[in-house]
């Protein structure tokens, strides 16, 4: 095998096997630090040896074995130094782990450990990207625009808490899996959204973050194939990401859904997302659990992407879906989105009346002022629209979004 091919193989194996290797080691040694460092060392060894010796027939198995040996070496050194009986015992303990939950997959335990509610949200995000995604600390720091030392400290603190506070490495019991899973899905969706529309910085889109979130979504779907919300979140991310090629213009300006070139959307992602939404609709129709938040958001996105043009969008279905979402999540953001859809069905005046009711709670949110500016413009109230655009531009952190809002404001007459 030639050089570049080996490099490609290592990159691919890293993507596919990292989480499995880390999770397997974490399960055996009960220590995320040991697991992560041994996995990283094994990949370094692979990068040295494979170009010379060729890629082994079972790369995942090779990595797992190598990483286990590295971990044992490390624990031996430490147990000699500190005489830590427990760690020494783990070295020789080959007994299979206790059954720990409804789903027997080490990676799933790793997900629930990294996303434990006792950890701060930002620590959950960082740990998930590190332990499951295999991103380096430097990559994660870059993605969230913080210093590498800051991110390293954050991850170290989270791992120390896992150890000191005895956060268990296991899948929660059946009864609280649903509750705990909502937190896991929130972490993945947060990673996706930060990639899809970066909240700050010079880059409007961070492809690697949304790609990573989709990969995590696919992994969760493999691990929990029967969960409707897992399918819903994956569908939502696929249907949203499919529109990415049409979302930012060549001049770096955000292109809204209505103005996007629908032929530029990714057909494969759309098809996969639609199929998942269909699967969920059928499951609900067959008497399954009613759809949760992500399934409803995915369904809304499916209505958008089903329309051959923006004019053909089935807005009344979208209003109805937002209405159902409001029952689950009566937040001002959901009410704002519903109001925008209402404006398409009943006219900008009706939508505006609903939007204005949210003025107090959403005053600091750029999308509120952007939506209001657009409705005021359509209602023929140019002066007020200009003020609302100014406020939205002030609050928006994304450069592509600011460029779009500025152009719309400057197009106002009167």
């Amino acid at each position, binding site marked *: 095998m030639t050089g570049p091919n080996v490099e490609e193989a290592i990159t691919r194996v890293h993507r596919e096997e990292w989480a499995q290797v880390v999770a397997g080691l974490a399960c055996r040694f009960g220590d995320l630090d040991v697991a992560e460092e041994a996995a990283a060392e094994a990949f370094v060894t692979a990068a040295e040896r494979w170009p010379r010796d060729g890629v082994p027939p079972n790369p995942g198995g090779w990595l797992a074995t190598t990483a286990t040996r590295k971990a044992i070496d490390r624990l031996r050194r430490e147990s000699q130094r500190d005489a830590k009986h427990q760690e020494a015992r783990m070295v020789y303990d080959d007994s299979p782990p206790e059954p720990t939950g409804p789903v027997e997959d080490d990676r799933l335990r790793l997900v629930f450990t990294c996303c*434990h509610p*006792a950890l701060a949200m930002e620590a959950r995000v960082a740990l998930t990207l590190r332990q499951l995604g295999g991103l380096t600390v430097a990559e994660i720091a870059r993605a969230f625009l913080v210093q590498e030392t800051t991110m390293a400290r954050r991850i170290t603190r989270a791992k120390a808490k896992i150890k*000191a*506070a*005895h*956060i*268990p490495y296991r899948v*929660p019991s059946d009864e609280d899996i649903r509750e705990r899973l909502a937190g896991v899905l929130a972490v993945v969706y947060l990673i996706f959204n930060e990639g899809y529309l970066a909240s700050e910085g010079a880059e409007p889109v961070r492809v690697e973050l949304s790609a990573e979130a989709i990969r995590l979504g696919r992994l969760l779907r493999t691990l929990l194939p029967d969960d409707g919300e897992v399918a819903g979140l994956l569908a939502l991310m696929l249907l949203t990401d499919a529109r990415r090629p049409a979302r930012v213009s060549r001049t770096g300006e955000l292109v809204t859904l209505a103005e996007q070139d629908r032929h530029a959307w990714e057909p494969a992602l759309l098809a996969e997302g639609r199929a998942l939404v269909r699967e969920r609709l059928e499951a609900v129709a067959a008497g399954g659990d009613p759809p949760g938040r992500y399934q409803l958001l995915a369904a809304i996105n499916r209505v958008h992407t089903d329309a051959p043009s923006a004019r053909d969008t089935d807005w009344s279905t979208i209003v109805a879906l937002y209405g159902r979402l409001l029952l689950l999540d009566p937040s001002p953001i959901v009410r704002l989105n519903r109001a925008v859809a209402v404006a398409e069905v009943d006219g900008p005046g009706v939508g505006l009346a609903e939007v204005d009711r949210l003025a107090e709670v959403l005053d600091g949110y750029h999308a509120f002022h952007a939506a209001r500016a657009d409705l005021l413009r359509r209602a023929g109230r140019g002066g007020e629209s200009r003020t609302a655009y100014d406020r939205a531009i002030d609050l928006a952190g994304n450069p592509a979004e600011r460029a779009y809002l500025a152009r719309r404001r400057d197009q106002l007459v009167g």
Partner: protein
Amino acid sequence: MLRAFADTGAFNERLRTDGHLVFADGLEAPTTATTVDGRGGKPVFTDGPYLETKEHLDGFWVIEAADLDVALALAAEGSRACHGTVEVRPFRSGGSV
């Protein structure tokens, strides 16, 4: 208040039966606290609690639990029983929380 005492008593009893309880008791009001700093040459005694805040520690449980999930579930029950917030903090030594 009486309700909280009764509920907490019942919760303590359950902790005892299930083998989680090591020790539990309430604390007198923060006005009865004295802060001691013995780091200098002569110890300094100051009237009042270590931290002057609106919230204060009312009491504590020392429990045995297999892991944080068990401890958090018990803390949630304890919080409901005593009608207050509960902070969970592991002991530095020992394998239990």
